[in-house]
């Protein structure tokens, strides 16, 4: 067999066919309904975020130009100024009247007037709170009169350890970690910063999870009712509009891939003079283009710029790539449904939840949606932040497409093998040499980080009900398991598919290659993090102590993880070289070694 070929003309021809074919399966009624839904979404979406403003000017207040109530009426949208005359009130042209600096209370029978009266009172209270707040901001002497009770909130760092994450326990964590970021920022409630933001906890917080609310952002003074949560709600909802169409498009995309596999329909395309890569690219191309078009339209609708579109495109690619892999592994449309729902829910959650903390923590930048939120807010992001936010998504999409394309061949795509065996087939298609093993170990690092983030989130959630003494060992065990599986799964696949000759020597070679690749990938990721987000605690956490350590210690900290990864990967590879059962026996040994090492390093570096 020859290597993959990629000719744009063929890709475009297949893409054109895919469009016409897909269009041919959509009847007119579906088209009309879809068009109607798009129109409704275009109209309702922004209205839902900004409010439909049906109550603008609903209460008419008869107030003169020079009345102190005039600014109140003008600042509140639901109030509208009218002529301050009794005749205007009696004729119904105004609902409530301000005469000689006094609000005339309408009679109880005048329900419209009473509602306008209440609205005016509320507006006056809000107006006064705002005035007094400004007095505090300006440091005027009468500020204490405005707020006679001064409550100051001070958030202390928690000493409870959850352990470091994001690294392999190679000495990079400081051990004290964890949840101190729960403060949600450094706002101290003193009314100085008013703006949202702040950094997570302290420098020792690799993954501080900020608390909801609190004085980390938003308005921090005024009456309690006027303190707003630090969530960029409006921008977040608008940013979410970018994600919604992706959930629909992957349904169609998953189906078209699945249809190629049902009844061996794609077989004749495979015997045409086009490569599987060209087929996959051609069948896929219309979908990111469609999502790009939709994203541009949504951006135009909600006021986003090219930055928003550039940020959501990698998300769209991951949606499609995950669906592609799922459709290649699924054995039926029923299984495909589970796949697309899982992709929808998990990816939507993954991009949406971090974006909630846009104004609280830079960790929010793990989601490209945060870039969109910032773009919508007009704050923007640096090039490094953009790369940090979107790079892993792009890489993940490429890796997933490559894995799926590896099984886009007759021998794999028409078989009804269990999903885990299909996954092994996909991996085996990509590893044919020790170099390939090293490369794919490195490429798995982003997936490892995501898995470890999920583990941390899970342990954080259950940490209240689990003994503190157990949390750190559990976390380290989970991290060790994730990393050892990532280093050995493709090695096992290679041996199972007879890509490698079974034997101790081969096992050692591919094991060392896997460990080396993983080590390099991990360190490269650290560099990217530090370049992208130099202030991010996660970035500092993965290479923290080295800067202040002696060269010898620094060298040791660098080489020790290399030794760890190669040794444990080799242990698992030796098992994989014998049989699947032997692999299942040696993998726990590798995990145990890794776990012991991590705990020891944490004890020396963190606790030391």
């Amino acid at each position, binding site marked *: *067999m*020859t290597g993959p070929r990629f000719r744009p003309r063929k890709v475009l021809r297949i893409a054109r066919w895919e469009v016409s074919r897909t269009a041919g399966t959509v009847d007119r009624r579906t088209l009309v309904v879809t068009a109607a839904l798009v129109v409704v979404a275009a109209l309702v979406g922004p209205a839902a975020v900004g409010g439909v403003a049906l109550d603008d000017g609903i209460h008419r207040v008869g107030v003169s130009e020079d009345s102190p109530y005039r600014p109140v009426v003008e600042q509140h949208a639901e109030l509208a100024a009218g002529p301050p005359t009794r005749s205007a009130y009696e004729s119904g042209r105004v609902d409530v009247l301000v005469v000689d600096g006094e609000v005339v209370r309408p009679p109880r029978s005048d329900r419209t007037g009473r509602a306008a009266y209440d609205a005016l009172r509320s507006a006056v209270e809000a107006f006064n709170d705002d005035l007094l707040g400004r007095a505090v901001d300006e440091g005027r002497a009468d500020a204490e009169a405005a707020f006679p009770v001064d409550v100051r909130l001070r958030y202390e760092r928690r000493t409870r350890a959850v352990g470091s994450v994001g690294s392999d326990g190679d000495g990079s964590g400081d051990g004290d970690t964890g949840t101190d970021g729960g403060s949600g920022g450094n706002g101290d409630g003193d009314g100085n910063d008013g703006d949202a933001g702040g950094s997570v906890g302290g420098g020792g917080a690799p993954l501080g999870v900020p608390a909801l609310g609190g004085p980390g952002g938003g308005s921090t003074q005024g009456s309690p009712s006027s303190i707003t949560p630090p969530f960029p709600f409006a921008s977040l909802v608008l940013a979410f509009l970018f994600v919604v169409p992706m959930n629909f498009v992957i349904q169609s995309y998953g189906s078209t891939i699945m249809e190629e596999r049902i009844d*061996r*329909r794609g077989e*004749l395309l495979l015997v045409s*003079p086009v490569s599987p890569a060209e087929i996959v690219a051609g069948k896929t191309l219309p979908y990111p283009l469609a999502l790009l078009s939709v994203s541009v339209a949504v951006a135009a609708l909600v006021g986003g710029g090219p930055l928003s579109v550039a940020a959501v495109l990698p998300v769209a690619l991951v949606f499609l790539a995950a669906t592609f892999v799922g459709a290649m592994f699924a054995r039926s449309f029923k299984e495909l449904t589970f796949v697309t729902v899982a992709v929808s829910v998990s990816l939507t959650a993954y991009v949406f939840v971090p974006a909630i903390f846009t104004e609280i923590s830079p960790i929010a930048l793990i989601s490209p949606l945060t870039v969109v939120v910032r773009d919508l807010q007009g704050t923007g992001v640096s090039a490094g932040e953009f790369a940090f936010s979107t790079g892993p998504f792009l890489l993940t999409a490429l890796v997933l497409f490559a894995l799926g394309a590896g099984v886009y061949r*007759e021998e794999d795509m028409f078989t009804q093998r269990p999903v885990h065996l299909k996954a092994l087939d996909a991996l085996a298609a990509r590893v044919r040499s020790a170099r390939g093993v090293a490369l794919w170990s490195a490429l798995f690092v982003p997936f490892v980080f995501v898995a470890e983030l999920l583990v941390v989130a899970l342990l954080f959630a259950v940490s209240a009900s689990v003994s503190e003494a157990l949390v750190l060992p559990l976390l380290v065990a989970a991290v060790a398991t994730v990393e050892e599986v990532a280093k050995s799964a493709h090695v096992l696949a290679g041996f199972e598919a*007879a890509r490698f000759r079974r034997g101790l020597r081969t096992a050692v070679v591919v094991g060392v290659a896997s460990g080396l690749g993983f080590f390099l990938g991990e360190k490269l990721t650290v560099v990217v993090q530090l370049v992208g987000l130099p202030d991010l605690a996660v970035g500092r956490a993965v290479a923290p102590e080295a800067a202040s350590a002696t060269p010898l210690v620094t060298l040791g900290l660098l080489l020790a993880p290399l030794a760890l990864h190669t040794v444990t990967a080799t242990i698992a590879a030796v098992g994989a070289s014998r049989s699947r059962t032997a692999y299942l026996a040696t993998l726990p040994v590798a995990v145990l070694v890794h776990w012991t090492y991590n705990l020891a390093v944490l004890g020396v570096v963190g606790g030391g």
Partner: protein
Amino acid sequence: MIEVADLRKEYEGFVAVEGSTFSVSPGEVFGIVGPNGAGKTTTLKMLAGLVEPTDGTASVTGRDAGDVETRRDLGFVPEESPLYEEMTADGYLRFFADLYDVPRSVADERVASALDRLGLEHRGRRIGDMSKGMKRKVAIARALVNDPDVLIFDEPASGLDPLTTNRVVEFTRELGAEGRTVVFSAHNLYHVESVCDRVVVMDRGEIIARGSVEEVRAEHGTTEYHVYTTVELPEGEATANGRHRRTVTSMTAVESVREAARAAGGEVVDIRTHEPSLEEIFLEIAGETPTGTVQSGPDRDGAGPDGGPSRHDGDATAGPEEAARGDREAETPSEPSAVDGTGEP
């Protein structure tokens, strides 16, 4: 044109093809026969570049069968007709012509010609609305859009009605006559026998016989002589018309029967030869009876001249052409000494 050397395919411990070696000359119609699971389809897919061999080599038109460019000279018809049912036949064939870089005008001409020859009407109809036979014709036409030198047909007539089957088999014969190289596999050995110049017989992944049909028959088959006498002889059997039949396998034995009949006061009234069909040879060398997996030709249930049960010696139900091809037993006059129509034993 096609060279296969030590071809092997293993699926997780299951050996589908083991050590196949054969070659196909330009313009030859080559048959691969065998029961289900014999390795025919896997072999053909390795030739079409669909399946990667575990070991060995397969080259087509001088290039590796797995090379994407090799497919430009290749037309493949798989066992089923997995078509895109929402497309029309015309649209489907033009799409594939585009992938083969066939200019539009040439493609139109080829598509029309192929469909005319196959007798496919309603070309603007959605493929999903077509019958199985029509779909099969579309699949065959697809294999011709690039005007290939080599055609690989895997069970092209599988599951079709007799009329369509005859058309497809006849079309395959025509393609061979045009000078194209055709590799043809079928369960129905009669089709293979009637179309192919040479065959290989596969069983459990291995080639167990090879050569022209005549060569295979000569090597593995045994010609039987049915000697009809007016008197009863040992090891003979009575026939419906009052005669007696003795079956022997050599001319010397025929003479012995003649002598025995004369000695018993009777005579030989008829001698008929029965050459074994490919199916019988296959059953003999495969050493099993794969009932339901290997079909005989339309002559399966034919009756012998004596009205008794007999296989492969005439077909009462087939058309004239099939009956002529299916009848391996020479028609002989009632002259006592006639064997194979030559007049003398």
